[in-house]
């Protein structure tokens, strides 16, 4: 299956791209996707542990199983307000 990945702030700086399409095994979790991203973009590795994920614009725990076609956002610690 394929998921679309969005990177923000320091995660985008490290990934060097703002979006990516990732081919990953069916039913993979957010955690598995993050592990894959760390391999694809080594510079992301040390910022990913602090990042939360959003699946289709809602926060999702790392155990969440992904489905084909979903959009996963990599969200560094937020600093709005």
């Amino acid at each position, binding site marked *: 299956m394929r998921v679309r990945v969005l990177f923000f702030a320091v995660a985008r700086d490290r990934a060097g791209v703002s979006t990516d399409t990732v081919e990953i095994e069916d039913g993979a979790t957010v955690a598995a996707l993050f592990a894959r991203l760390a391999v694809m973009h080594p510079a992301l590795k040390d910022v990913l542990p602090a990042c939360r994920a959003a699946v289709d614009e809602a926060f999702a725990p790392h155990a969440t199983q992904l489905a084909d076609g979903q959009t996963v956002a990599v969200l560094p610690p937020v600093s*709005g307000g």
Partner: protein
Amino acid sequence: MEPYGITDQPLDVAALSAFVADPAAGAIVTFLGTSRSSSADATNVERPVETLWYEAYGPMAAKRLRVIGEEARARHGATRVACWHRTGEVAIGEASVAIAVSSPHRAEAFACCRDIIDEIKRSVPIWKRERFTDGEEWVEGYDGSE
């Protein structure tokens, strides 16, 4: 006016305050988060900020503002809530976030407004970047842990 949103334009607290005004409300509390001319770095030293700007995951940020505002409104029995966050460059002294809350009595308006800004800082996908004389950096934020 939309009560919740993300915009790259200056925020208008008077418009938000007027929006939440209601004959049933005896109190209106507003909060403006404004950009400061100095900011503490990772070692807690205050450094002068030259410019700062905000990046948002726009669609999700707008949804979160609405959820946070309406949940706080219901929890506190407030009358009306409005909340906007700005993106892009924000000049020193200008507002990055504006909240307005009306309620029958003042205690709920203060508590509701305070809860909203606290939760925005915890869970709205927006990031601040500051430029100092000697470089620029993303501001360390809240990672979701308690």
